[in-house]
Every structure is written in C-alpha cells, then in structure tokens.
C-alpha cells in the first residue's frame, strides 16, 4: 500500500503533464489541419487581358503556389444556339482571361491587400478578386483559435513549472531523512541519488505507457472519430512511436530536471 501510494504520488503529476502536453499537441494539429483546409479552399481570381504564368506572378507575389486558368468554354457553349458563329468568335476574342491562384500560406488582411495591389500592377491585369470579406471571417476565426492555443500553451507551461516545484518539494521532504543518514554513513552522491532517479525513470515509463494507451484508444475508436467528423474536426491519430516516445521523453526530461533540482537542494541542507 505504502509502495503504491509512493509511486502514485509521482505518477499523478506526470499524468497531468502528459494529458496537458498531448492535448496541446493534438489541438495544434487540429488547428494546423484547419489552416491548411482554409488555404486549400481559398483562391484569388485574376482577370487579365494578357496570358499570365506562375513565374510572372511569383516575381510580384512570392507566396504564389499554383496558377490555374479558368476555362470559359462552358459559358460560351451555352450561347452557341443564340448567337452567330461570327459573333461568338468576336466574343471569344474580346473576353479577358480568368486565372485562379493559390497561395502557399494564409496571408493576413494587410498582406492580402498588398498582394492585390501587386497583382494589379502587372500590365494587362484588369481586376483581382480576393473575396476579402469572407476570407477575413475565416482568418479571424483561425487567429482566435491560435490565440486560444497560445494561452493553453502558457497554461501548460505554468502547470508544468508548478508541478516541477511541487514535486521537488515533496521529494525533498520525503528523502531528507534518508539523504541525511546516508551522508552521515559516507554514501557517495550517486548512491544517495540513484534510488530517486530509478523511481522517476520507472514511473515515467509507466505513466507515458498508460497515457499513450488512453490516447491511442481515444483517437482510434470509430465512435469518437465519427463524433468529431460530424462536427467538422479531423482528429489526428495518436502514433505510438512518434507521440508515445515524445511523451516518454518529456516525462524523463521533466522528472530528471526536478529530481536533480531536489537532490542539489537536499545535498546543500
């Protein structure tokens, strides 16, 4: 019972830390996915009198990723029956060219206005549609989400810091007597510290394994995946090798830092 209680006292803060870190990590991935979805769906339309190509546009706007011509044949074909072939030919020749361009990253409102300005400078370009109003709506929502994420990251960092300090105090309290007695009996530094390091390494392995199993189940369960899909969120899958090892690494790092901090303090006392 005593043994269990001792290990739980170390594992509990590690659980909290792992849950916070993994939640932060998943949330970041969800927002990144959302950003990339917005970027995929968003394009600028250019109306030009002269043919344009990617290199020409890239000279003006570096973030241009893809340029596609919008064919107007469908519209012209609809008019085929109502006007003569000659008029159709004149119409075809007098109509401008339409281009849809995609950017490699989402610009903010100011950058978008600059992009429009730069594109309009190209000779032959008659108009540029950035759909700024609806774009701003999405972009602001994204910024809001990113801000929330930043607050969450700060919150996690504060929690981690508090956990480190708290856990170190607990260790100092719990091991003070043992440290003092071992010092009087001439135990070397490594021997006094070995037990603490061994305990935190074992507990980090156990905690990261348990949290990894929970997240793995949660992100691989059809029930939860469907639920998130319904509300338009694509839940990133927990990767045991990548995410599990990351959690274990963080756990080991935080534990070793806090144990070392506690040991230095214990050794001074």
């Amino acid at each position, binding site marked *: 019972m005593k043994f269990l209680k001792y290990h739980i006292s170390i594992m509990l803060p590690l659980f909290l830390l792992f849950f916070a870190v993994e939640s932060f990590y998943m949330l970041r991935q969800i927002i990144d996915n959302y950003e990339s979805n917005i970027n995929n769906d968003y394009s600028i339309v250019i109306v030009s009198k002269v043919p344009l190509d990617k290199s020409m546009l890239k000279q003006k706007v570096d973030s241009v990723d893809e340029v596609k011509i919008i064919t107007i044949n469908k519209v012209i074909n609809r008019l085929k029956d109502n006007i003569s072939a000659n008029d159709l030919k004149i119409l075809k020749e007098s109509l401008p060219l339409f281009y849809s361009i995609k950017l490699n990253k989402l610009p903010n409102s100011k950058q978008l206005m600059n992009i429009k300005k730069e594109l309009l400078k190209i000779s032959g370009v008659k108009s540029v549609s950035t759909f700024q109003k609806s774009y701003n709506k999405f972009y602001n929502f994204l910024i809001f989400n990113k801000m929330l994420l930043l607050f969450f990251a700060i919150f996690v960092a504060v929690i981690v810091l508090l956990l480190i300090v708290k856990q170190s105090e607990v260790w100092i309290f719990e091991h003070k007597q043992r440290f003092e007695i*071992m010092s009087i009996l001439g135990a070397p530094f490594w021997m006094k510290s070995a037990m603490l390091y061994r305990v935190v390494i074992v507990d980090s392995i156990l905690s990261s394994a348990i949290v990894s199993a929970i997240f793995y189940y949660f992100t691989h369960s059809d029930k939860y995946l469907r639920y998130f899909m319904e509300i338009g969120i694509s839940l990133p899958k927990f990767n045991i090798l990548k995410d599990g090892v990351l959690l274990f690494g963080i756990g080991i790092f935080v534990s070793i830092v806090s144990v070392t901090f506690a040991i230095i303090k214990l050794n001074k006392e």
Partner: protein
Amino acid sequence: MNSAKSSVVVAENLTLAYKKNEPIIQNATLSIKMGDFVFITGKSGSGKSTFLKSMYGAIHPREGILNVCGINLRNVSTSNKNFLRKHLGVVFQDYKLIENWTIEKNVMLPLLIAGFSKDVCISQAHKLLNHVKLVHKADKYPLELSGGEQQRVAVARALAHNPVLILADEPTGNLDEYSSSVIWDLLKGANAQLGTTVITVTHKIPSLLRVNYRHFIIEDGGIDEVS
C-alpha cells in the same frame, strides 16, 4: 587507513564554532587511543554534540587540528570525509533509522555503502540482528519497534561494517533502564571483543557499567580529562 600510532582522535588547540567569534569549543587538546572507551559529559549546550559532530565531519574546525583516523578534518574534501565516515559507526539519541526501510535494510546500509555484495550484506545483517536479539523482526519497519529496539537496530547498524570508531550521541537518552543496559552492553562488547574505540557523549555515566573508561568534561569551551 593511517591510525597515527594508535591514536584514533587527536585534537590540538581545536576551536569549533557555528558563527565567527562565537566559539563553542576553544583551544581544546586531547588524544584518544585505539580501543579506548570514552565518555564526554557536560552541561546542556556545553558543546558535547558539537564536538561529536566535528569528529564525523559535520562541523569543520575553525582553528587548530582535528585528526580522526588519520584524516585532518580542518579542510577535508568530500571524498575524504566520505572515506572517513565509511569507517565510523554513529549512534544517535533519535536513532536515525530510515523509516521506510526494513530494519534488515537499515542494518545493511553501511555494508552497501562499503560496496559489499547483497548476499554478504544480508548474511551480516542477520548475524548482527541475531546479536541484538531482533532477528525475528528483520522484516519490520522502524516505527513498528519500541524505542529500545530501534536503538538496538541503530547499534547493530553502527557495528555492521566493523568500524574503527563508534561515536554515540546520548545513545540511551530516550530509553528506560533495561533498554539502556542492553545498549551499554552492546557498546561494551564491541569495545572489549573487537577493540573498537567508543566515544560516547552523555549527560550521565551509567553507574553499573563495568568497563575501564576515560572521562572528559566539556566546560566553558574547554575539554578536560577527569583523572
């Protein structure tokens, strides 16, 4: 270890102080030889425990020389201090046993520190627990034992690695008459059979102790031997 011609403890003009210009022991000179059984007495706050602490390097001399088992403790390095402590047995009034370790493991501790294999440690711990008549409680934790039993465990731990010198700080201060006599018998036995030097700080020398001992009194910062 250099025993410096059978002198285990040599102090020359020794001054001990926690704060500068507030000496607790001043200009003390004494020599304790191998196999001596020594009592150090004095009033409360006279510096008995401070002197004992200085002998295992918990307090460093401000002035003078303090040589224990051939190691000068004036400017001792951590490794030398650990080396010295590995050859000492220390017994405290409050036992200083590790509460979440079994008494067997507590007794094993000096042997583990000395680097003996686990089997040797277990066998030696059982021998000593048998000697202090607590082998049947080897798996118990210190707080499950009475004060007298805990002090017997502490003495067993102090004897575990066959130390050159045992330092005991009021070892019977918290014990009843019977438990006290058991502890004195154990210390006397170590001194008589193994030739271990025993230095005990106490406020009162036990009257029924049949042993040749030396007696030092600490008074007004000085240490004087009572003839």
